[in-house]
């Protein structure tokens, strides 16, 4: 199945009216999330002026006010929401969740609310094509990326240890911060698992076990994807500092509509417009970095079609939007006969990477298992006629259960892609359309994950093990691919440094450049490491004039 032709969707009128050129900088970055922040930080440090364009609103940092509103006032502030005719996409296939809610458009992007679990990919994850026969090998290997992993860990302030994890990939530098120890209930379950040969270990996390880089020590609020004090990394930490240098400007509520390339294919400017509407503006830059997430980055390259690039920028090989993958995550609940009172709520303290690479890898993909108590964030609303005693009764089972998270790979396929939609945003630009459908490989992953989960349940003495159905898989909020790295334009969109094939000066940063899934590891640390490498390349380009 091929992506449908979207050219007809681009309206003729969309190109009408020449925007007035009003500004310029050395670097323009589309997006203000964690990849954009990593690139901006490196380039500002190297002495370049950087401007970031974010369609979402300001989002104060640290997120104390937002925390108070959400946790204590039960209030979803409309200040942080974008209108649906600005932030929307269309979806086909079998994905059962609301994909549009999986990205957060505010200054700082989705990493303003994240689990902050930051494992590295394993060396073999970069070579699944040649080693296991699924996906493709990356044009960059673990050894090449390892120094950037160290820098990414230093930037995010990762707490961790490999002392209890025999499956950790090799590293040249220790974690910048000591680990978060397992909770009492994790230790209890770890002992039971070890009797059956299963290793549960601590997980690396981008939150501060001790104070670090101006961020305070974690106080264990338990709302870990939403930290009021900045212990959990949020791009706001660095953006605030960058803005103070006067070399970095961040424009909120600004939609980038297209990238302008000259006759030689050099990216020269972006065209943007305020969310509220009005005229288009042009911002010229010597380097442009698109860091808007896997879906919106592909959309912007497609929207930037011109006479020289009729299929969109970087799309000579018709690769933009392809190789789109999610992690496939299934959550379960293990109910125990005794109370556990999971103490550290909202974060995965216990993790097992033992099932990443088994002898059967190839028939199925990598698997990671986490113990979590994150379900506490999704508590059912009490019934209308409930009494306080009813509420306590309703919560009682939570005291003796643990969440189990099964995170597996998926493989690129022609049934998974991003293209342009037939529906348009308020400016008349086509929205992104996502087609996503699980296949046989993902089914095998599910079967494998369930069998491992049953082993966990049995080894830990769970009385009840309940899992979501196979077709209710969740992306884990991890969207990867669409502008993947490759040696040339025939099989990808960017080179291993993130520069778009055939478009000097145009770069893509973020998980969009992944060749496939990041194994069973959360993608954020890897995308930050790659973004730091891209920033070096951009600085080199600017340095050469």
């Amino acid at each position, binding site marked *: 199945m091929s992506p449908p032709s979207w050219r007809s969707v681009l309206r003729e009128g969309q190109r009408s009216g020449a925007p007035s050129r009003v500004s310029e900088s050395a670097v323009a970055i589309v997006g203000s999330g964690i990849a954009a922040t990593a690139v901006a930080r490196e380039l500002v440090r190297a002495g370049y002026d950087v401007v970031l364009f974010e369609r979402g609103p300001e989002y104060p940092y640290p997120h104390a006010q937002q*925390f108070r509103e959400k*946790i*204590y*006032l*039960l*209030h979803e502030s409309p200040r942080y929401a974008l209108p649906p005719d600005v932030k929307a996409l269309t979806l086909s296939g079998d994905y059962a969740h609301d994909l549009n809610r999986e990205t957060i458009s505010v200054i700082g992007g989705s990493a303003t609310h994240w689990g902050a679990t930051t494992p590295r990919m394993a060396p073999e994850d970069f070579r699944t094509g040649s080693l296991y026969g699924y996906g493709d090998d990356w044009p960059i290997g673990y050894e090449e990326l390892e120094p950037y992993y160290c820098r990414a860990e230093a930037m995010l302030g990762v707490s961790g240890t490999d002392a209890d994890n025999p499956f950790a990939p090799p590293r040249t530098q220790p974690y910048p911060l000591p680990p*978060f*120890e*397992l*909770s*009492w209930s994790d*230790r209890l379950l770890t002992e039971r698992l070890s009797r059956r040969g299963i290793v549960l270990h601590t997980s690396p996390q981008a939150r501060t*076990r001790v104070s670090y880089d101006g961020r305070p*020590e*974690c*106080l*264990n*609020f*338990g*709302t870990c994807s939403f930290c009021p004090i900045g212990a959990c990394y949020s791009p706001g930490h660095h953006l605030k500092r960058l803005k103070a240098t006067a070399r970095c400007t961040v424009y909120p509520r600004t939609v980038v509509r297209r990238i302008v390339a000259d006759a030689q294919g050099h990216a020269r400017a972006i065209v943007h417009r305020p969310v509220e509407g009005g005229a288009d503006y042009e911002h010229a830059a010597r380097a442009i970095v698109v860091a808007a997430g896997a879906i919106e980055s592909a959309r912007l390259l497609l929207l930037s079609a011109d006479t020289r690039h009729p299929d969109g920028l970087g799309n000579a090989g018709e690769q933009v939007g392809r190789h789109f993958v999610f992690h496939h995550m299934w959550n379960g609940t293990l109910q125990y006969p005794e*109370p556990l*009172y999971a*103490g*550290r*709520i*909202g974060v995965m303290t216990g993790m097992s990477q033992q099932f990443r690479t088994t002898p059967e890898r190839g028939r199925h993909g990598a698997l990671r298992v986490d113990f979590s108590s994150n379900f*506490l964030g999704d*508590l059912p*609303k*009490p019934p*209308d*006629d*409930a*009494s*306080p005693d009813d*509420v*306590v009764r*309703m*919560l*009682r089972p*939570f*005291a003796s259960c643990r969440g189990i998270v099964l995170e597996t790979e998926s493989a690129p396929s022609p049934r998974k892609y991003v293209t342009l939609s037939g529906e348009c945003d308020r400016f008349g630009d086509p929205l992104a359309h996502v087609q996503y459908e699980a296949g046989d490989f993902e089914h095998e992953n599910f079967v494998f994950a369930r069998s491992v989960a049953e082993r966990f349940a049995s080894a830990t003495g769970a009385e009840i093990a309940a899992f979501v159905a196979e077709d209710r898989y969740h992306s884990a909020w991890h969207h990867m691919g669409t502008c993947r790295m490759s040696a040339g334009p025939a099989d990808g969109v960017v080179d291993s440094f993130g520069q778009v094939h055939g478009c000097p000066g145009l770069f893509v940063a973020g998980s969009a450049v992944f060749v496939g899934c990041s194994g069973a590891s959360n993608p954020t640390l890897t995308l930050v490491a790659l973004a730091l490498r891209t920033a070096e390349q951009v600085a080199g380009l600017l340095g050469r004039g």
Partner: protein
Amino acid sequence: MTLTRRRFVLGMLGLLAVSGLGLGIAHWQPLRRVRERYYDLEVDVPPGPLDEETRATLLAVVTAFLGEPLVLAHYEQFLSWRAANLPGQRGLYQRVAGLLDGASQRANGCALRVCDPEARERLLGDLLRFRRSRPRRLAAVLTRRDLLLLDVHVLRPVLRLFARTDAWVRLGYRAWRGTPRGLEAYRRVPAVLEKRPA
């Protein structure tokens, strides 16, 4: 009595028709709109700070409704913030506080906020009995709109806040999600289990 086939079929058809009609009415858009409008708040009083008497009466209601132990301060913040920020809330709070104080005056000879806890609980128990019975709720629709609004706009949100906070302490947790609990306690045996006999 023997049930003939004809009677059975007619009975089943009648049952189906009644259920269909009931479902239709429940989901009929105009009726749903009327129902939603019924719970809409008047915005005659602009958002703003709560006066002391209203605040005290509302907290007396929260204490009687939720029971103890309870950290009253965050319910106070919750209701004050809603009064100051959400349209219609302050006016509702003032009206129901007046209503409850009046009822308490008649029943106990004192305003609700200064009554003794038993009298408060007794009065609220009577007034809020409709919450747990469908026929009583239906009757309240016709006669006690302010109490229904109290339920929808005060008690239910307060209960949701309770479910995220104090309910966990009643369940046996040291503290709830959203309080700074430090990095030591979570590694120890929970206090509630330490107290149990071996």
